[in-house]
């Protein structure tokens, strides 16, 4: 098994809020991330696909296809967007980096043409990232 990783970047805003919490609970739990006007990050997405090398091409998968898929399914959906308001998955769910990684897995896993999705890594900042392996 060989693992291939491709990176993409997108910038988006978000805030964290649970309507079932009181305003005080929201502030205590989410701190400055609770500002209803939102704030933003430059996210880095790493998509890792595992598979075997096709002896005809020497490749696990066509990286152009993976680039296009990431662009169409994730970057176009999230780049320069307000995640809570513009990405349907986050209408009622906090767009935490944890939930973002799981959502991106859901978007990409069924559409991969070759190989098997191994890991989604989302960096919210250079000092904070989340990994999701689909289980």
């Amino acid at each position, binding site marked *: *098994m060989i*693992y291939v990783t491709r990176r993409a970047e997108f910038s988006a805003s978000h805030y*964290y809020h*649970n309507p*079932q*919490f009181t305003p005080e609970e929201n502030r205590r*739990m*989410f*701190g400055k991330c609770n500002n209803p006007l939102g704030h933003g990050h430059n996210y880095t997405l790493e998509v890792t696909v*595992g598979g075997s090398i096709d002896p005809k091409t020497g490749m696990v998968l066509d990286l152009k296809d993976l680039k296009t898929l990431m662009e169409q399914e994730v970057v176009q959906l999230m780049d320069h967007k307000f995640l809570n308001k513009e990405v349907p998955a986050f209408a009622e*769910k*906090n*767009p*935490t*980096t*944890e*939930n973002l*990684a*799981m959502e991106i897995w859901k978007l990409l896993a069924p559409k991969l043409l070759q190989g098997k999705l*191994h890991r989604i890594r989302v960096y919210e900042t*250079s*000092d*904070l*990232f*989340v*990994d*999701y*392996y689909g*289980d």
Partner: protein
Amino acid sequence: MVYLTRRYRFSAGHRLHNEMLSAEENQRIYGKCNNPNGHGHNYLLEVTVGGRVDPATGYVFELPRMDGIVATSVLDKVDHKNLNLDLENFREQVPTTENLCLEIYNLLRAPLENAGAESGLRLDRVRLEETSQNFFECASDRAVQRP
């Protein structure tokens, strides 16, 4: 199960020296790291925890709590310290980054896993960079088995 990694930085001094070895052997094994006056590094520490995402918050573990535990259990003990002299465990054990990585894993495991018990939180991995050119990892059995 989702894995959250946070990076932290600390600076510390140390000297690699084993009292059981001769001066020549120490010099041969540890080279310039055996300098009796010591030397220091800017360490980069990565802590990875894994657990279930709480549907009410979207979090695996609240970052301020994680930061607090890492500060109290590790950073306060090592940052701007002499590892050989200020840390009890390194009075007789050589503070290589291998040993320091293992020590940090052991310092963090119980407090993090106890604090995150509700979401089944596990300390998955500790990764410690001594310089940008070398790093060491101490991982749970689960992390080792993962490809």
